[in-house]
Structure formats: structure tokens, C-alpha cells
């Protein structure tokens, strides 16, 4: 789509675009190209000399069991976070779409965790689960489970999953509710007259009609679990205990910024970049399809 009516000026459009483009070039494109460049170099311990090593940094990564297990951990983490956050949000959205009285009140109370920073959400839950004084840990102790995320890897993993899901429900809820409210009521009424009960209507009308929303949310949730959860991990477990919560973003930060292993960190950056680009492409393919409907 293009405008028929346009203005003419030799310099104005460039002047208007300049600030955005300069920032993009200096802080986005240049650093990304540096990451690409460094991912094929090997620096010596003092950072004095570097040597071109082709894909050695990448093959070294995939031979490194730490990296491979971090990859698997991140995959499990994103599937859990996306699945739980979307499942709970869909359930709540279906219920909120059903009730008439009080719907807005419920909505207000359900959407605000969106505004809570991941690191702050992490702080909330680390207090709830604190092995000595946390209220949830206390409840679990009284049921006989000895919760301690500071020592047990699987407990720490559960902790970051709960915090990440808690924060993401509100986002998914907003989109599912918008999707549900866009379904024409006449369709549901027609099905009801034909004798379809609520369960049947949900399966054969509602679910197919919100599948574009679900697919979109799936991509967004995976991106969220991959990248935005850095704050949760850093503020609560710092990747521990014994790397049990070291997801890929945390590893990039830790290896590059704390461990100063530039070649490996750059190669990890490039892999993450590839993942984002793939997800974005998938996302845009979906938008094109939606327009075609």
C-alpha cells in the first residue's frame, strides 16, 4: 500500500530518518556485525593477538557438554513456560468471556503482572519459595517435601519456571480474550440451536477460530522464554545450583561479560541471533497468511 499524495523535498526525509537510522547503525547493526566477526576469531589469553579459525568456535560449542545441556534445558524451559502460560491464560480467558457480571473487574486484576519486571517477579517468588521462611516452601515442608532451590537443581528450575509463567499469563490472557471476543456470537448461537453443548462448541468452533492467535502467542512466548527471562534467572538463582538454571541467554552473559571468553560468547550470540531471525520469519509468514484469509 502506497500513498498517492506525497510531499517533495530533497533533504527533509533524510533528516527525519537520521536519528533512528544512526542509532540503529551504531548500536544494533555494528555490534551485531562485530559479534559475527568475532565468532570466527580466536583470541589469546591477553587479547593481544587473534587468529582466524573458521567455524572452530561453533564446533567447540557443540562439542562442549555444558553448552549442549544448556541448549536442552532452554528448550524444556521454553516449552514448559509457553505451554503452562498459554494453557492457564486460555482457561481464564474462556471463563472471562463467559461471565457477564464482573468481567471487567477480573480483567483488571489479571492483567497487571504484565507491568512487573521479570527481575522483580523473580524477587517475589524467591521470597515465596525461600527454604527457611518462604510461605510456599513452608507449605511444601508440611506436606513432606523438602523444598530447597539453593541446593536442588530441579527445585531451582521449577522456581524460575513458576516466576516466568506467573508473569506471562497476563499477556496471553489479553490476546486470548481479544481473540475470543472477536468470534461472532451468531456462530455459537447457531451451534447451540443445533444442539451442540459448551464443550462441543469450544472444540469445533472456538478452538479453530482462535488458532491464529494461539500460533502467534506460541512464537511470542518462546521468544519471551528465551530472552526476557534473563532477569528472573540473574536475580534469583544466577544460573545455579550447579548450572541447573543456566539457560542460553544467561550463558552468553556469563561467558562473555563475566568469563570474558569473547570468541565463544560471540558464537553463542550468533546462534541466538539465528534463532530470533527464524522465529521472526515464521511470525511474519503467519501474518501474511492472516491477511490472505
Amino acid at each position, binding site marked *: 500500500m502506497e500513498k498517492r499524495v506525497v510531499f517533495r523535498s530533497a533533504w527533509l526525509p533524510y533528516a527525519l530518518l537520521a536519528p533512528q537510522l544512526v542509532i540503529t547503525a551504531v548500536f544494533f547493526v555494528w555490534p*551485531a556485525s562485530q559479534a559475527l566477526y568475532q565468532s570466527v576469531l580466536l583470541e589469546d589469553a591477553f587479547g593481544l593477538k587473534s587468529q582466524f579459525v573458521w567455524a572452530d568456535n561453533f564446533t567447540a560449542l557443540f562439542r562442549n557438554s555444558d553448552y549442549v545441556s544448556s541448549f536442552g534445558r532452554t528448550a524444556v524451559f521454553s516449552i514448559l513456560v509457553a505451554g503452562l502460560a498459554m494453557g492457564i491464560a486460555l482457561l481464564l480467558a474462556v471463563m472471562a468471556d463467559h461471565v457477564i457480571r464482573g468481567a471487567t473487574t477480573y480483567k483488571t486484576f489479571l492483567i497487571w503482572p504484565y507491568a512487573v519486571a521479570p527481575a522483580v517477579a523473580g524477587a517475589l517468588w524467591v521470597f515465596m519459595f525461600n527454604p527457611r521462611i518462604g510461605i510456599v516452601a513452608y507449605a511444601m515442608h508440611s506436606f513432606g517435601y523438602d523444598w530447597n532451590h539453593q541446593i536442588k537443581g530441579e527445585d531451582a528450575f521449577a522456581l524460575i519456571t513458576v516466576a516466568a509463567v506467573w508473569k506471562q499469563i497476563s499477556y496471553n490472557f489479553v490476546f486470548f480474550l481479544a481473540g475470543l471476543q472477536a468470534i461472532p456470537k451468531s456462530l455459537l448461537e447457531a451451534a447451540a440451536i443445533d444442539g451442540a453443548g459448551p464443550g462441543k462448541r469450544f472444540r469445533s468452533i472456538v478452538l479453530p477460530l482462535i488458532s491464529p492467535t494461539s500460533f502467534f502467542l506460541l512464537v511470542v512466548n518462546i521468544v519471551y522464554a528465551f530472552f526476557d527471562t534473563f532477569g528472573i534467572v540473574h536475580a534469583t538463582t544466577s544460573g545455579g545450583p550447579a548450572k541447573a538454571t543456566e539457560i542460553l541467554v544467561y550463558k*552468553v552473559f556469563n561467558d562473555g561479560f563475566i568469563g570474558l571468553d569473547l570468541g565463544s560468547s560471540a558464537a553463542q550470540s550468533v546462534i541466538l541471533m539465528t534463532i530470533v531471525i527464524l522465529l521472526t520469519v515464521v511470525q511474519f509468514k503467519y501474518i501474511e497468511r492472516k491477511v490472505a484469509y
Partner: protein
Amino acid sequence: MVERRPWLTLLAHVTLAIGVLMVAFPIWVTFVASTHRPEDIMTAPIPLWPGTQLLANYSELLFSGLKNPSAGGVPLWRMMANSLVMALIIAIGKIVLSFMAAFAIVYFRFPFRMAAFWLIFMTLMLPVEVRIVPTFKVVADLGMLNSYAGLTVPLLASATATFLFRQFFLTVPDELAEAARMDGAGPLRFMKDILLPLSTTNIAALFVIMFTFGWNQYLWPLLMTTDRQYMTVVMGIQRMINVADTDPQWPMVMAAVILAMLPPVAIVVVLQKWFVKGLVETEK
């Protein structure tokens, strides 16, 4: 409603109530903990009803800060002020830059127009997390560490806001630009007097989203600031929790958590209509 099914309605209310409880319970526990003395939060079970230290805790935290070495000495109002400055510059800056860029792309024809569009689009695929070290190096080389400029300028480019404005400008009738031109208004005049007023709802929606985004930044200020004077409240909390060899001062930490989430939550709840619009529209 399609038919009357009282049991289903009851089930819906019960489910929603459980959902609200799940969402709100951690906040209640946090708030309660922030109103007690540290001694009361030392052994389980911790109290579930507010204590008497509300004013004492919050005023000590806001005006003198914590006493532990890693986050100590900086009063919380200072961190809150840093967060506010950062969030406002990012929100307003992103809106202004994207508005101008979208205007140029929609209302002008010039060489490299599509190239500029794609360059902006690329920022979507390059979150800070994938280019940590090289971006840090650029900012360090420019001498922007420990400054508000370093905290905000690198985050001002926004592909989503530019797209939103572009989509909106494309729906503005051509007749408006034609009429403006006939009346002798130049492009800048048209932008300021016609497009800007038409865009107010979009700007409000973007502001809610971008303010929250700016306030909640974590990794970026972590990289950019070593000077405590520039610490933001969201990253300050991490320092308060991870103290070496001792227990965190829980009531204080929890008070900081409440204060850190208050401004963005207030904005999202009060401007709920625009928040939902902004969220749904920017993701299209």
C-alpha cells in the same frame, strides 16, 4: 450468553477467582512482609497480616537506603528517580523518533526508502541479549558508561513503534494531505498540525507500553552502570537479594519490590484501555 447454565457460570466465577488469587497472593505476601520488623520475618511461618512498620520501613528505605555493602548507601528515591528518568526518556524518545521516521517513509519518495525501512526492521531481530559484549564495547568507546545517555540512547530505536505509525498513516485519507498542500502547508506543518493530533490515541497506547518497557529494563542498566548513583530500582533489587554471608533484609527488600512495581502497574491499570490497544496493535 447463548443459553442459561447456572453451573457453568458458577464454575467460571470460581476459576476466575482462583486465577486472581494466584496472581495476587504473592503480592499480598510481599506487602505484608514489607510492613514487619526483620525479626518477625526470620522464622516460618511468617505473618500473613500487615504489621506496624509500614511507615518506618518505607521511609527508611526511600530516604536512607539499605545498610548492606552491595546496595547500601543509595536511598531508594534516587534509584526510583533514575528509573523514572530512564523510562520517560525511552518512552518519549522512541515515540518521537518513530513518528518522524514513519512520516518520512510514508509521505516521501526518495532513494533508499525501502533500504531505510528494512534497516529499521532489522532491529526487531537483534535484542540486546544477542549482542551483549560488542554493544557494551561501542558504548564504552563512546564514553557513555554511567550516564543517562548510555542508559537510554541505544534503546531509542523502535521497529514496532515505527510500524504502528506507518500502518496508521497509511489509513489517513489522502485528501487531508492534498487539502493541506493546497492551502500552502509544508510537510512539517502538516505533520505537526494534522498528523500529530490524529495520532493521539496511538501515542497514548505506545506510551504505556514503552514506559513499562523502559522502567523494567534490567540487563541494559546492569551493563551500563558501575556507579551506584545511576543504579535503577529494578537492578537494585538484585543487589539487595544476593548479599554475601548474611540473610537479605527481607522487609526492606520486599518494600523495594512493592515500590519498584508500583509506577508501571499504576500506569497499566489506570490507562488500561490504551494499554490493551497498545499491546494488541504493536504486535500486529
